[in-house]
């Protein structure tokens, strides 16, 4: 076969991009749940649309515009501010919008050519760019766990949040949002979207573990380190214990210095959040604390964070 001309290469790339927009665009809907221009969402499974939590500003009277222009009403199945995800159920699951093609499971690569799609109105819109940074699991400032850090070098326009990040080959790598970081577009990876959407569909919220303590970082003086036989230079002093909380029942006292959870040293309140995933609810967790200059071990049964504290 003769090599395609360079002209043909460009045309083929252009065609692939347009075809990816066309295919995935059929699963991209407009979400009317705020006063300004509509936001975007992706049909993730039949009758279920994933959106960016921050774009859903009212919980009643939500309508969707599908790719073929039909309008469908939807109800909010649940939302998780910590990952900026929300899930909507279409009133008519048989409405003509197929779920997005199989989500990508492998990590995006730096430099990979990607498209961000949106539907801030009747037509699908596209922007082209590259993946600029990929990192490991990270926690949002509200304590949500995102499986992978994915930053884009790509222009995002009004109404793009909730739209898909599409690999040039046509697979959906995740959901884009401007709601998790200032002045930059991030992608919530498909694995995180599927995990959170599953929990939201099952219980309407994402359950998180809870001890019922408030802590502040403190330095451990060398003498205390020696008497504890500990290398750690910092711990977390307990400044509040909620009455009748798991920590209260487990014997944690105000003034205890938390040194480790499950034998992993803690020195930042975020370390505590990280140890309290929804899967820990009902399970015992081992606390190592300094009390009166001596190390003690306590066992606390992790509770579920009350919804008002979410």
């Amino acid at each position, binding site marked *: 076969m003769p090599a395609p001309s360079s002209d043909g*290469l*460009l045309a083929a*790339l252009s065609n692939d*991009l347009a075809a990816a927009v066309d295919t995935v665009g059929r699963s991209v809907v407009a979400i009317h749940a705020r006063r300004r221009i509509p936001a975007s969402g992706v049909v993730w499974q039949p009758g279920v649309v994933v959106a960016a939590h921050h774009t859903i500003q009212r919980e009643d009277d939500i309508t969707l515009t599908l790719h073929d222009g039909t309008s469908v009403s939807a109800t909010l199945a649940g939302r998780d501010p910590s990952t900026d995800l929300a899930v909507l159920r279409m009133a008519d699951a048989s409405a003509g919008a197929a779920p997005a093609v199989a989500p990508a499971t492998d990590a995006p690569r730096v430099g990979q050519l990607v*498209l961000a799609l949106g539907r801030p109105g009747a037509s699908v819109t596209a922007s082209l760019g590259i993946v600029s940074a990929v990192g490991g699991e990270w926690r949002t400032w509200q304590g949500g766990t995102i499986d992978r850090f994915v930053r884009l070098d790509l222009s995002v*326009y009004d109404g793009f949040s909730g739209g898909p990040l599409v*690999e040039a080959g046509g697979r959906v790598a995740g959901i884009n949002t401007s709601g998790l970081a200032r002045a930059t577009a991030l992608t919530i990876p498909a694995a995180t979207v599927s995990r959170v959407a599953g929990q939201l569909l099952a219980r309407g919220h994402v359950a998180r573990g809870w001890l019922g303590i408030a802590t502040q970082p403190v330095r451990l003086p060398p003498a205390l380190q020696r008497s504890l036989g500990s290398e750690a230079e910092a711990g977390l002093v307990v400044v509040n214990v909620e009455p009748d909380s798991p920590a209260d029942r487990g014997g944690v006292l105000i003034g205890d210095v938390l040194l480790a959870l499950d034998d992993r040293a803690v020195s930042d309140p975020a370390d505590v959040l990280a140890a309290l995933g929804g899967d820990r609810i009902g399970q015992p967790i081992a606390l190592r604390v300094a009390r009166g200059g001596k190390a003690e071990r306590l066992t606390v049964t992790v509770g579920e964070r009350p919804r008002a504290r979410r």
Partner: protein
Amino acid sequence: MPGVESLLRGAPALDAALGELAERLRRVTVQVHAGGRSAGAGVIWLRGGLVVTNAHVAAGPRADVVLPDGRALPARVAARDPRRDLAALAVAADDLAPALRVDARGLRAGELVVALGHPFGVANAVALGVVHRGPNGGRGLGGWLHADIRLAPGNSGGPLADIQGRVVGINAMIVGGLGIAVPTHVVERFVHEIETGGRGGVRAA
């Protein structure tokens, strides 16, 4: 159709193709000077000396045009329509190679597009982007072509073209970071109105 991965392994060939594309556009793009300074770009539309640019680029009755071959010619503003942000410049030349055009209403979101212009006084700078949303046939900005592409003021009046170098629009403004172009079918109608004696918003200047 080859996958994108294999396409990107052909990156040097892509570079060459983009270079050829930019050269093809350069041969139909002019510089427009008004009031002694560079005001923007224009596109050669008719062999007999008709150049299309934006109304906001050719704000007065006269302008000066630098052709792709370097000739500098005085131009008369033959027609101007601020509503469509279009102006037609007449230059004394009958040997110009007009731009190839194609109807922008056939574009699909995600298709590659290329813009040529003179942003910040840099002659014939090229930009690559994609169709953000094609013209929807409506009035107002919705009826124009929206491109995800990095433009600057000197791109005004210059061509936005598809990946084969066919002009799909005249770059007119930047709104919220998007490049907004007057689609070719609107330009063709404007030029047709001039040729048939003027109608609608077209005023001979």
